[in-house]
Structures are given as structure tokens and as C-alpha cells.
């Protein structure tokens, strides 16, 4: 396993100093201690021209209103995401659905923290080629139902890079990528969220070299009905550490993640062509890998509720399945000698599991059949021919250059 985060940490200072910038580009510095800092920072984000950098001073920014950026090719750079860095503290937030909203292309967000927003942390919508890098989004009191939903939240975008971020406490997903294409989430840490990392209604994603720990569910790959973009497919989840996802589910009821059982490692729902490989799993009390259909009532004739062509291979499996938190799970575990196998499938759609571990099927191939009619039994999913391996996601060079 390789962890870019550590490698980056060693070389970052040198590379950042050499980064070339266009001749006309300017740096707009804003200080945390400016009177009306909220308004001044927002003004800077409005007046920035393409190519400019908005430099956030070090210190704790006490902000009451959400910020937004709608100018293309702007860098927002702080003095660091940790103690002593640039800390955007939204504890006293009075307005806006998120801490920072980006709606323009080619934006680079780096080296700052967003804390305790009332809604989402950082959202980008229709913002192509966005780079989230070395950021921290955190609800500092830890898991609470009153925390905001998403920490890092790109949606409706093409080319998304999330690199070396830390997200904690989101009452939905720490890192959530929705209705987007060509996505890389890497070298990041998601802890004590309901979902650590979630890829939803999206195409072509690589989720790798992350640590998802102490969430309710570590990494989720979902597809939901009645949304403008659906039919999620081509997602690779590899070389992550997904362990001890043991936080009791604290999502507000009604949200789809409120149904994620505590102790879930990777959960795939209603996607096609998902590869889960070379991950290290341990201490996920429900299952290390769960593959299910969308089993709720819906009225969307175009929606495809089954997981299809899911491949699980080459993963290391530590202890799992010892306290399965789905209805009837404890009884099944008791009947199987105290724990269920590390891979759990509801029996809908199809999957290939090449890992040398047991698979429990609930034998519910029709998503309309209620879960109460489950007929749990071990299943052998190692026999089929896996589909051709998915290609590595390649992002535009301009994006990779920003984090080199």
C-alpha cells in the first residue's frame, strides 16, 4: 500500500514555492482579524479575477454567513488546515446552506479548515475541475444529529479531485460526491461521520488510499431514483483502510444513510461495475463489504435498482460480522456461531467475490420482497467471469499540477 499523503507532506513546501502563475494574476490577502472579516472575505471572493489567489490569513475566522465563489480559475489558499492555520469557524452561522459554496470551474481550495457549519461544509455545484486539497471539515463536538449533512460536497461536476482532506462528524457523508463524472478521492481521512466517503449517482470514480474509520459506514457507492443524473457505474474502491466503522448511526431519519447499519465497511447499492480490491478491512461489526439493491418503493421507471457486475477481490479481511445491525442480523449471527461472514449480499443483482472469505446471501433477488422474508445462507460467488477491469481515472494535467 502506498500513502500519497505522507509523501506529499514531505515535499509540499518546496513545490508550492515554485508554482508558476500567470503574469496578471494577483494575490488578494484577507486577514482574520479585519473588522467585518465575513464581508471583506466575501468581497474578495467576488472581486477576484480568473487566475487570482485569495489568501486567507492564519487565525480563527468567526463567520456568521456562508461564503461563495463564482469566479473561474481562482485559488483559495489558507495557512494550513490544522491548529494555527486558517480556521473558518461557523459556530455562530446565521445564514446559507453551507460554509463555502463554489459555482465556478477550475477552482483550487487548499490549506484551510471549515468548522461547525449549520448545513454542509464546502459545496461545489456545476464546478468542473475542482480540486479540494489539504482541507479539514469538522464538527468539533463529534457525531451529533444536529451536525451538518455533508463535509466536502461536490455535485453536478466533471473532473473532481479530493486529495489529502480530513473530515469528521458529518451527519450524512464526510466526503460526498454526487451526480458527477470522472472523480478521484485519495489520501484522505474520514472519521466519525455517518458515511465516511460516498459516491452517489456518479460515473467513473477512483476511491483509493483513504482511511475510513469509526464512521457508521466507511465507503458507500449508491444510486438513487428520481434524480437528474442516475445509473451510477464504473467505480473502483481500492487500497483503502476501512476499519472499526462502529459509530452508531446518527443521521436524521428519512435520509437514505439513516438506513446504513452500524459496522459497515464498504456498501454498494444499485450500481453497476464497481470494483472493490486490495483494501484492508478490519473490525466492521456488520460486514466488511455489503452489496444490496435499492429496496424502497419508488416511481421512477428509468431507475435500475439492482447492483450489477460488482467485483470483490484481493482484499484483506480482519474481524467482521460479529454484531450485524440489520433486522434479524443478531439471530443469524447466533445461528452461525456468533458472527456472519465478512461479505453480505441481499441476493439482488449479481456480484463476483474472489476473496477467500465467506459470503452470506439473504436470498432476496426481488427488491420488492420485504427483508423479513430473507432466507440467509452462505453463497459461493467465486465462479463467474469478472468483467474487464476498469481503467484508471485520469484527471486533466492542470488539476494534478495543482497538488504536485
Amino acid at each position, binding site marked *: 500500500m502506498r500513502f500519497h499523503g505522507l509523501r506529499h507532506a514531505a515535499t509540499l513546501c518546496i513545490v508550492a514555492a515554485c508554482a508558476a502563475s500567470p503574469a496578471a494574476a494577483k494575490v488578494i490577502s484577507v486577514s482574520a482579524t479585519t473588522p467585518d472579516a*465575513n*464581508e*471583506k*472575505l*466575501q*468581497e474578495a*471572493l*467576488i*472581486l477576484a479575477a480568473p487566475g487570482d489567489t485569495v489568501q486567507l490569513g492564519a487565525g480563527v475566522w468567526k463567520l*456568521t*454567513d*456562508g461564503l*461563495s*465563489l*463564482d469566479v473561474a480559475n481562482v485559488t483559495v489558499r489558507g495557512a494550513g488546515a490544522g491548529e494555527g492555520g486558517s480556521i473558518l469557524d461557523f459556530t455562530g*452561522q*446565521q*445564514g*446559507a*446552506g453551507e460554509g463555502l*459554496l463554489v*459555482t465556478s470551474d477550475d477552482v483550487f481550495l487548499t490549506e484551510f479548515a471549515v468548522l461547525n*457549519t*449549520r*448545513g*454542509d461544509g464546502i459545496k461545489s*455545484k*456545476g464546478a468542473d475541475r475542482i480540486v479540494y486539497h489539504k482541507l479539514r471539515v469538522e464538527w468539533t463536538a463529534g457525531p451529533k*444529529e*444536529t451536525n*451538518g*449533512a*455533508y463535509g466536502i*460536497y461536490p*455535485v*453536478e461536476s466533471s473532473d473532481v479531485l479530493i486529495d489529502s482532506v480530513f473530515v469528521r462528524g458529518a*451527519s*450524512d457523508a464526510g466526503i*460526498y460526491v*454526487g*451526480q458527477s463524472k470522472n472523480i478521484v478521492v485519495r489520501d484522505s481521512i474520514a472519521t466519525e461521520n455517518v458515511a465516511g466517503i460516498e459516491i452517489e449517482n456518479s460515473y467513473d470514480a477512483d476511491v483509493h488510499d483513504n482511511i475510513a474509520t469509526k464512521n457508521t459506514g466507511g465507503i458507500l457507492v449508491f444510486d*438513487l431514483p*428520481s*434524480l*437528474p*443524473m442516475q445509473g451510477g457505474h464504473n467505480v473502483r474502491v481500492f487500497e483503502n483502510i476501512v476499519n472499526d466503522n462502529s459509530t452508531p448511526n446518527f443521521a*436524521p*431519519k*428519512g*435520509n*437514505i444513510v439513516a438506513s446504513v447499519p452500524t459496522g459497515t465497511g464498504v456498501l454498494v447499492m444499485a450500481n453497476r461495475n464497481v470494483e472493490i480490491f486490495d483494501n484492508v478491512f478490519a473490525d466492521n461489526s456488520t460486514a466488511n463489504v455489503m452489496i444490496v439493491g435499492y429496496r*424502497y*418503493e*419508488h*416511481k*421512477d421507471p428509468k431507475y435500475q435498482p439492482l447492483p450489477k457486475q460488482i467485483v470483490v477481490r484481493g482484499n484483506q479481511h480482519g474481524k467482521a460480522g460479529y454484531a450485524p445491525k440489520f433486522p434479524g442480523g443478531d439471530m443469524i449471527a447466533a445461528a452461525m456461531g456468533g458472527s456472519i461472514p465478512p461479505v453480505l449480499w441481499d441476493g439482488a443483482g449479481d456480484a463476483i467475490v474472489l476473496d477467500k472469505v465467506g459470503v452470506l446471501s439473504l436470498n432476496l433477488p426481488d427488491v420488492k420482497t420485504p427483508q423479513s422474508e430473507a432466507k440467509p445462507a452462505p453463497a459461493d460467488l467465486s465462479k463467474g467471469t469478472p468483467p474487464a477491469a476498469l481503467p484508471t481515472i485520469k484527471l486533466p494535467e492542470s488539476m494534478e499540477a495543482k497538488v504536485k
Partner: protein
Amino acid sequence: MKRVLAALGAALLCASGGAALVAPAVDQALVESDAMPAKLSAFGLFRGNDPKTPSTGIGYTLRAPLFSDYTDKHRFVSIPAGKKAKVGSDGVIEFPVGTVLVKSFGWSDVNDGRPVETRLLIRRASGWTALPYIWDADGKDATLALGGRRVPVAFKSPDGEAHSIRYAVPNKNQCKECHSLGGEIVPIGPKARNFILDPAASDKLRSLYFENPAGLKPSMPQWDDPKSGSVADRARAYLDVNCAHCHNPAGSASNSGLFLRWTDDPAGVNYGIGKRPTAAGRGSGGMEFAIAPGEPDHSFLIYRLESTDPGIAMPEVGRSTVHREGAALLRQWIAEMPKASH
């Protein structure tokens, strides 16, 4: 000859706004430039810079206005001389370059009824631009507030309840969040079905500014007038104006899949009936559906309208107060729907 030149000089001074004694004119060159002047007076939109007396243009109101913390809104449109707005066959009003939509916000019991802020929506060659101005303490001019601001105000709503809020003047980007369609800024209210020209305006004045003023047919129900439509129709008009500027397939809330335009199918799941939360977070309030027919208390659309918590409240910007009367109409609409069979 000298006298002629002097007169010419005076006329030039007037045109440039240098003399306050003569009738002011809108600085059309400034309007059509890329400038964002620090002071509202620079545009010459008002006589004596009194926000209640436009120097040119024509006043209008809307059948269904957007709720903004019970503010009274004074609206007018300034259209450059010799140009005219045109009502399209789809009801969208096409304004010529150089048009300014001017909207002043205030309360009758705040600052003696003087507005707190004036927002401009300017049609420039490059598209619409939104500029927010906050009136100075002396009420003589207003200052550009690109970054928005919180202004503490105390007022009474029509039901007599006293409110003390930190009213949010939106920043320039927030103007766009609501006024955005496919990434471009567009006016929200001025559509033929919603647009009412000042009834006192003569036919001559109407024809001066509109190519086809007869095309303005304000047909949408008035949300608070039961005579203007059924509960369902008035609820839909309310949703159209208060929500659909974001909740449409090209708006800021496109990813939610909740679409609330007057033209959307009110029986469809994308209108919210039986629709599960998407990215709602705490906004779901522990409920399963945006609209649960017959059950307003189990419909999180109502929950979000009745909240002022920034992680829950809808709309996300422009509201620090609950619009009780609007919420009551939507409650009645949902309560009267036949309960779903599930």
C-alpha cells in the same frame, strides 16, 4: 456666440450629473458599462435620490411576490429611451440592453418607511448583473455592499407579531444563486403571468416601454386571495415564485430533483409528493417525504419552510423569518390531498 457656448456647457454639466438643480437623467453609459459604482446615486435612477421617486421608467408589482422577511418592495423598471421590452410568446419578458430593474426593500415601521436596501438587476451587453446597495444612515444615498451585510431591524408582521432580526442583505453571489438559470443571471418575477404594470400608468407610457403591453396578462393566482384560485392553484403559484427559481432543472437546486415550477406536473414525484430526501441532511426533520399527502406534519417541505435554522431552512438565502401565512396555505394544500395508500 459666447452665450451659446455657455448654454451648451451648462447642458453638458447637466448631462453628466454635475448639476443637481435640473431634472436628473439615468446615466445610461454607466448602466451599460461594466462598472460597479460605490454609490447608488451615480446611476441617476431617482429624483433627488429619493427611492420613492424614479427619475424615469414605470412601476410594477407582482401577482405572487417572493417572500423576504415581510419587507415591502417598491419596484420599477428603467428602460433606455427609444428601446422597448417585448413579451415573448412563452410569457418571458425580453428587456433591452440598458434596462435596470430596481427593487427597494423596507418596512413601514423601520426608518420611517425608508428602504433598507435597493437591489439592481442590470441588463448589460454581457448579460444581467446583480448589484446590492444598502442605504446610508442619513438616508441620502446607498452604498454598494458586494459582500452582503446583516442589518439589525425590528418590525411587526401583518398579524401584529413583533420581530427582531438580523436581516440579511444578500451578497452579489447570493443574488445569482436565486437568479440563476443554467449559470446565467435572469430576472425571477417579470414573467407575463406574474407581472402587473402600475395601474396608474397611461397606455401611452405602457407603449413607450413595451412593444406589446397587451401581452402582459397577469393570470397567476394571487397566493393570498382566495378569489383568485383554488388552494392548490394558489399553493402552486406560491411555490413557483418562492422556490422554483432554484428548484428547476437548470437552477441552483437542480441536483435535488425537486422541481416546483408553475409548469411542472404537480402529481409527479419530482414535485415532491412521496419524494424521499436527497442531500437534505437535517432538513428532512426525521421525515420520509417532502410532501406526504394529507399529512403536513409529516411533510419536510413544510418543516423546512417553518424553520429559520440555516441547516434546515428553505429558501437557503433571503429569509430570517417564517412566512406564517404562506406556510399556512401550503399546510392547507397538503392537508386537503387524499392520503396515500401506503
